[in-house]
């Protein structure tokens, strides 16, 4: 909303303040002023136009302050802020008793929507001569951003800007009957004033003349009913149309204008008749020979007068202030809020109808607070019991994961949750929740659904960075994926917190002492093993798997063991399938995705310390040749099951499969076993039978041959 200080000055004394100072005052007390434009800036330095002292303030109004969508409303606010009273003489322009008029007998009204049209008023003017309006009106409108049209429409707009009441004008000769109907539409086609054919549904309110709609209430006239240069009789409409109906219809039709903005936020019912009388008077005065033939006003719901009780004690207790009774009274007086003091320090306030935003005690407290000045509210600390601040376990674990991955050389990324459906042709999704969640009102197809995997945006991030010259990429993201088992949501979808990782390029930059080795599957596996160990999770396993979008020979499903011993699938580690690599312009790329909920559940924060062993350990190595497809994890399991309780650790220190072994599809694999007895030193005699047992197990279970 733009306001002119000259225009405001008709209602409130602004002397002593520059435009900038007024803007500062308004902003400090709750009406933000976006810009101040002087008349010189507006019209040019050489202007001979009359209102050269003018300043145009552009108000950035919050939705609750629709009372300031008018010069008078803003004047009231200025008075409250500056501590000045309104000019009562000027306000008489909107006093019904200032006007003499006869009732309009030509039209009657049948209102079928009394809830959404609580008040309706019409005036009929005859003998109008359509022409340009006086220059000063045109200037005032232009300064506030409203284009001048003619001596009828300009006054309608002028009154709307001045008092906030939208005024609509029909060519009265277009009305076919005397019965005006206010009703909801019935899937009708209307050509609106802009010349477009529009269809309205049963939520739209229409003003009809009995034959056809004359307007969509508060939004636009039907084209036929607009005034034209030849119009001689005009019907002026000043009415209430409810905010919700106006809002719905104006949205559906894509028709928003100065009128709908005001109706949407609920207008002041008390202003309907005075605005009509004042606009009629002005139009008659500006059009020689014109005559007001009558004014009628239909009130369908009583205007409720609201009173609110608030005590000085409550105000100060709520704000933490010590505002005096005199200060409160002064604020209320400059707000022009009539009040009584029924008992000591208690105020019974009658809320003016123009302030529809004020409905309860706290609204009054806010008025007092903002006009008293937030800068005068003291600073205090919350009293009462102290509370221990804390993170939840999940948040602690997430921080630990982030920490360990960063320590391992991975860079954290945060990518968009909204994505393009195309990604999921080639990327694994959760089979239990296969339904994607699509937006009803996306901005673009690129951001039209919620991601079902962290992978696509990690791939895009890698691709983006490669393009900009970063060749070694180690990234991760912790974030939610979203999916459902309902094609159309009735419940909230699943949100699974996940960890995604991606690795491509070399482990390090070229270095004089360390060759820059390409990354491998085992780098990403090693990092996640380190992470799981760090979280105190020991029971996990990697098993060869075939998953869409991933290399069929280089993919593992990852399982954790639940507390009852059952394996839970938590995700995968893999090399990307070459087809997918190509799709995202990547080279050999390794990826991992883990569901974090089971990890949160199985993380072990407890450490139960054992004393350091008293007796030395004994180490034995076993090297065997097996078929190339035998899994190391299975062999380790075999060793663990056969080696007995003294086995402390088993590791693999060599894997070899070239030369003759490769030709026969075999590999050599060497294990190092560490044994220890808690109460004595183990001897060769102790170890020999254990060693034999392990070797036999490897022979029997995996057809292993012992290497000499």
């Amino acid at each position: 909303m733009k306001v002119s200080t000259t225009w405001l000055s008709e209602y409130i004394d602004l002397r002593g303040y520059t435009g900038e100072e007024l803007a500062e005052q308004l902003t400090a007390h709750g009406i933000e002023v976006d810009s101040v434009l002087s008349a010189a800036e507006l019209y040019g330095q050489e202007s001979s136009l009359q209102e050269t002292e003018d300043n145009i303030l552009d108000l950035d109004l919050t939705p609750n302050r629709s009372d300031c969508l008018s010069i008078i409303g803003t004047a009231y606010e200025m008075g409250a802020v500056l501590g000045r009273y309104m000019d009562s003489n000027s306000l008489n322009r909107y006093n019904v008793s200032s006007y003499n008029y006869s009732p309009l007998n030509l039209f009657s009204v049948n209102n079928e929507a009394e809830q959404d049209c609580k008040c309706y008023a019409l005036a009929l003017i005859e003998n109008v001569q359509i022409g340009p309006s006086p220059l000063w009106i045109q200037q005032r409108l232009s300064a506030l951003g409203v284009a001048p049209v003619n001596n009828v429409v300009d006054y309608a707009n002028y009154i709307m800007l001045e008092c906030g009441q939208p005024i609509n004008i029909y060519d009265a000769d277009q009305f076919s009957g005397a019965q005006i109907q206010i009703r909801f539409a019935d899937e009708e086609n209307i050509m609106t004033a802009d010349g477009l054919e529009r269809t309205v549904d049963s939520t739209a309110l229409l003003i009809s003349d009995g034959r056809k709609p004359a307007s969509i209430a508060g939004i636009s006239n039907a084209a036929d009913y607009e005034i034209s240069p030849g119009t001689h009789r005009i019907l002026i409409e000043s009415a209430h149309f409810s905010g919700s109906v106006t809002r719905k219809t104006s949205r559906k039709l894509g028709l928003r204008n100065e009128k709908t903005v005001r109706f949407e936020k609920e207008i002041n019912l008390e202003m309907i008749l005075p605005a009509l009388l004042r606009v009629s008077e002005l139009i008659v005065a500006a059009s020689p020979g014109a005559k007001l033939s009558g004014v009628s006003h239909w009130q369908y719901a009583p205007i409720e007068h609201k009173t609110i009780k608030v005590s000085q004690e409550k105000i100060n207790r709520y704000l933490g202030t010590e505002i005096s009774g005199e200060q409160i009274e002064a604020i209320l007086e400059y707000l022009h809020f009539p009040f009584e003091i029924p008992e000591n320090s208690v105020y019974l306030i009658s809320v003016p109808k123009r302030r529809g935003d004020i409905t309860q005690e706290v609204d009054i407290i806010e008025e007092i607070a903002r006009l008293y000045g937030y800068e005068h509210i003291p600073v205090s600390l919350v009293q009462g019991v102290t509370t221990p601040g804390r993170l939840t376990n999940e948040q602690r674990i997430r921080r630990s994961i982030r920490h360990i991955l960063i320590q391992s050389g991975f860079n954290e990324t945060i990518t968009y949750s909204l994505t393009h459906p195309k990604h999921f042709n080639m990327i694994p999704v959760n089979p239990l929740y296969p339904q994607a969640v699509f937006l009803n009102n996306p901005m673009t197809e690129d951001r039209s659904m919620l991601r079902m995997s962290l992978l696509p945006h990690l791939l895009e991030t890698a691709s983006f960075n490669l393009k900009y010259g970063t060749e070694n990429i180690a990234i991760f993201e912790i974030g939610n994926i979203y999916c459902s088992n309902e094609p159309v949501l009735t419940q909230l979808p699943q949100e699974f917190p996940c960890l995604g990782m991606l690795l491509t390029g070399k482990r390090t930059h070229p270095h004089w002492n360390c060759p820059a080795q390409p990354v491998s599957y085992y780098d990403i596996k090693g990092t996640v093993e380190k992470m799981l160990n760090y979280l105190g999770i020991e029971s996990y396993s990697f098993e060869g798997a075939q998953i869409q979008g991933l290399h069929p020979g280089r993919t593992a499903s990852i399982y954790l063991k639940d507390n009852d011993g059952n394996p839970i699938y938590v995700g995968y580690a893999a090399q990307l399938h070459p087809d997918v690599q190509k799709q995202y312009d990547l080279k050999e790329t390794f990826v991992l995705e883990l569901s974090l909920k089971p990890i949160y559940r199985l993380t072990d924060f407890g450490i139960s310390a054992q004393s350091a062993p008293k007796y030395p350990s004994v180490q034995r190595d076993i090297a065997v040749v097996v078929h190339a497809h035998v899994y190391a994890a299975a062999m380790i399991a075999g060793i663990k099951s056969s080696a007995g309780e003294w086995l402390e650790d088993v590791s693999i220190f060599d894997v070899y499969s070239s030369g003759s072994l490769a030709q026969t599809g075999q590999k050599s694999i060497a294990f190092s076993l560490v044994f220890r007895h808690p109460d004595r030193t183990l001897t060769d005699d102790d170890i020999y039978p254990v060693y034999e047992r392990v070797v036999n197990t490897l022979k029997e279970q995996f057809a292993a041959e012992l290497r000499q």
Partner: protein
Amino acid sequence: MRTKLDELSFEAKKAILQAESLAELNELRVKYFGKKGLITEISKNMNTLSSEDRPIIGMMVNSVRESIKDQLNEKSKEIEQGILKEQLAKETIDVTLPGNPAPIGSVHPLSKVTQELEDIFIGMGYSVEEGPEVERDYYNFEALNLPKDHPARDMQDTFYITEEILLRSHTSPVQIRTMERMKGQVPVKIICPGKVYRRDDDVTHSHLFTQIEGLVIDRHIRMSDLKGTLLQFVQKMFGTQTQIRLRPSYFPFTEPSAEVDISCMFCGQAGCRICKNSGWIEVLGSGMVHPNVLEMSGYDSTQYSGFAFGIGVERIGMLKYGVNDIRNFYTNDLRLLTQFNHI
């Protein structure tokens, strides 16, 4: 005999002094103390001496032996040290060559800011609560004093999935869920960090951004407490010289509501590009919890009051780290991200 001993001692010491290697010293050791060594021989022949001379000569022989031995040991130490020194000199490396790589990654700036904010509020006694990003209209709007068709819904253009399910446009629904769970118990003292979504994308807006909202409910919470809490927070975040300014504003879920500015730390309020010459930078929105919000979630507004605030994490990150475009947080350009690799 005495002269002979003196000569022997003199010869030995001279030889030891001239020796250059441990091998030479060994030869000398054998020459004097071996089975047929010169000192050994003299000791063997002691019984040929008279009983008067024997003790005297004996003492002299012992003294010469000890002194030669000492000298041998000393010389041997000296040579060993020389050898070590030489070896160490040979082992010299270029200690200025780059060390072996121990790669470190980087934390995303939004995580860094979020953790810092969380830690500040945890230190002030707040718990950290989270909730779903896909929310019901009720929790995102209705329970926050924003019934359907409320004009203020225009303030937040929202992504909808169905009529009733949407992407949360702020983390306030977590406050509502927490209040419901607390069933009227006080004190409530929480912060709610998380991703939020608005149908908005330009230089200053991203359709995804991160918020941390805070909520305190107890008996007799005052607006001055809100002011004090925010002052404490900004001073911990931006330094103790930071001041705040509250400006009246409007949010449907708080009343009175305030936009909060902090004194510009870039120019010391002298006026600069970042504060648009005003000396103040807008950083968050806040207010006293609207009584309707308290009532809808089971708190008697005549008994309890509260305050709430909402912080844009990206905004804080831009101020704190000089990131100049909100969208840079989501581009994930490693040339930017890897700068966040240290404390």
